């Protein structure tokens, strides 16, 4: 098909997709926008954007959540209390408002969106990881390590974290869809980064021509649906694979 990223960027000034007379042709099966940019190409590059957002934001959230969860569980006491109260506060934090604020100040930018989602989305992970780490902490191998003289740092890095990895992978896989949808939603309502043709942006453009070129809105919607479904299946499958009880 020979498209590059630059070519498949959708410029908001053009307003809407207009298919000329090339609807459904082999070269442009889904039509083009009024600048002749192929919709299918944009969908595909949109996938790339969505996945990047998904992975990076989730990565940040998971890393932060794991660190906080494990440290909180292992150190216990006041540190645990403080961190969990902090987590509670962050959980109620209106990230949406923060985003609006950032967009207002800095203008819409994909990097900021990823950062905001990542820096506010770690709370669920922290709680789950903390819970798992708490039950691990009383296991005798942790005490054995302590008895050998291991420092807290070593115990957390060498023992606790490897034992929560499978949990983290499952959480991550199941979080990615949420992040992708969040970004899509943001773009849809106009807070997204306009220089990037993510599915949300395509959806946004497509809603204006629902009565004529309805597939412009529907196609990204379908892609989102399929992607979310795929990650959910993957997450469920991984969770079953990691569950020791399922292999008798």
């Amino acid at each position, binding site marked *: 098909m020979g498209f590059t990223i630059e070519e498949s960027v959708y410029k908001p000034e053009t307003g809407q997709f207009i298919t000329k007379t090339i609807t459904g042709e082999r070269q442009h099966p889904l039509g083009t926008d009024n600048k002749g940019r192929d919709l299918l190409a944009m969908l595909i590059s949109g996938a790339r954007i969505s996945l990047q957002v998904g992975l990076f934001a989730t990565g940040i959230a998971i890393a932060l959540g794991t660190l906080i969860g494990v440290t909180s569980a292992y150190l216990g006491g006041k540190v645990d209390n403080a961190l969990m109260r902090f987590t509670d506060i962050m959980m109620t934090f209106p990230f949406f408002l923060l985003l609006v604020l950032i967009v207002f100040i800095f203008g819409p930018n994909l990097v900021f969106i990823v950062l905001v989602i990542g820096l506010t989305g770690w709370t669920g992970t922290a709680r789950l990881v903390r819970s798992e780490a708490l039950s691990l902490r009383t*296991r*005798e*191998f942790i*005490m*054995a*390590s*302590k*008895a*050998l*003289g*291991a420092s807290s740092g*070593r115990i957390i890095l*060498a*023992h606790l974290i*490897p*034992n929560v*990895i499978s949990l983290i992978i499952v959480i991550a896989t199941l979080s990615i869809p949420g992040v992708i949808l969040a970004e899509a939603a943001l773009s849809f309502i106009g807070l997204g980064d306009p220089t990037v043709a993510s599915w949300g942006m395509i959806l946004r453009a497509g809603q204006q021509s629902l009565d004529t070129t309805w597939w412009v809105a529907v196609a990204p919607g379908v892609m989102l649906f399929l992607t979310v479904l795929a990650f959910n299946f993957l997450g469920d499958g991984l969770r079953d694979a990691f569950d020791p009880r399922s292999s008798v």
Partner: protein
Amino acid sequence: MTDKLLEVEDLKKYYPVTGGLLSRHLGDVRAVDGVSFYIKEGETLGLVGESGCGKSTLGRAILRLEEPTEGRIIYKGTDITKLGKKELRELRKEIQIIFQDPQSSLDPRMTIGQSIGEGLLIHGIGDDRARVKRVDEILELVGLEAQHALRYPHEFSSGQRQRVGIGRALTVNPKLIIADEPVSALDVSIQAQILNLMLDLRREFGLAYLFIAHDLSVIRQISHRVAVMYLGKIVELAERGEFFQNALHPYTEALLSAILDIRQKGKTRILLPGSVPSALNPPSGCRFHTRCHRVLPICHQEEPQLKDVGSGHLVACHLYRA
């Protein structure tokens, strides 16, 4: 005359209980409530008691895995309750621990070679090659093979995992090992194997054990002296022969009579009424008086002290004068 390797003086470990709206201090669970004893070099002290008596807590407190609330623990002449972080770490090479549960005592994500070698890594003993060599040595010492080093715990049986746990404790060359119910979770035929291993290692390395168990038959096989704990206190302590032939404390009598051994036919059993009282609110006077079949009036009021009634046989009971 061998030296006292470990001397415990009036050791206490309390767990505060808070409750109510303002988290007031309601009281303390007195898990260990004033315990004193010693262990000599190369000696095995068997510590017996039922669940909740505080024996495991005592073992962990000696290692400072749980910080003692009060009391002194003197190891080779130094009070280790006062040690700073750095010296405590050095102490970890002298006193080690073996756990009860072969399932949870090994990190499932580490190979057994890594588990055994962890002590060496932590203390910076040897380079990579030296460590591998040492791990192989240890594996053979505990009855496994060098090739097992690359395998994971779930590939081994309970007995083998327990051997790994013992090996892990040995890598740093300890002089004293706290064995916290090391064979309680094992089948009888494997239990015998592990006990033999511990006997062999003791002979070879001059190890001292604090052997914690609830099974007196096992205790009899491995201990030089035996101590009985009830509700946080030692109620009797004696040389093995003296202990089994001449048990004095009524609780010890009850424990011995409750043992079901096929070699002992037609025993009369002392059935203790009720169950162990709460360690949060132990009975007044002698803690055992609520269930004692030989209780005297004084037992309700005054707590008996642990006294030597002759040739090192200690008992805490009003029935006996020093």
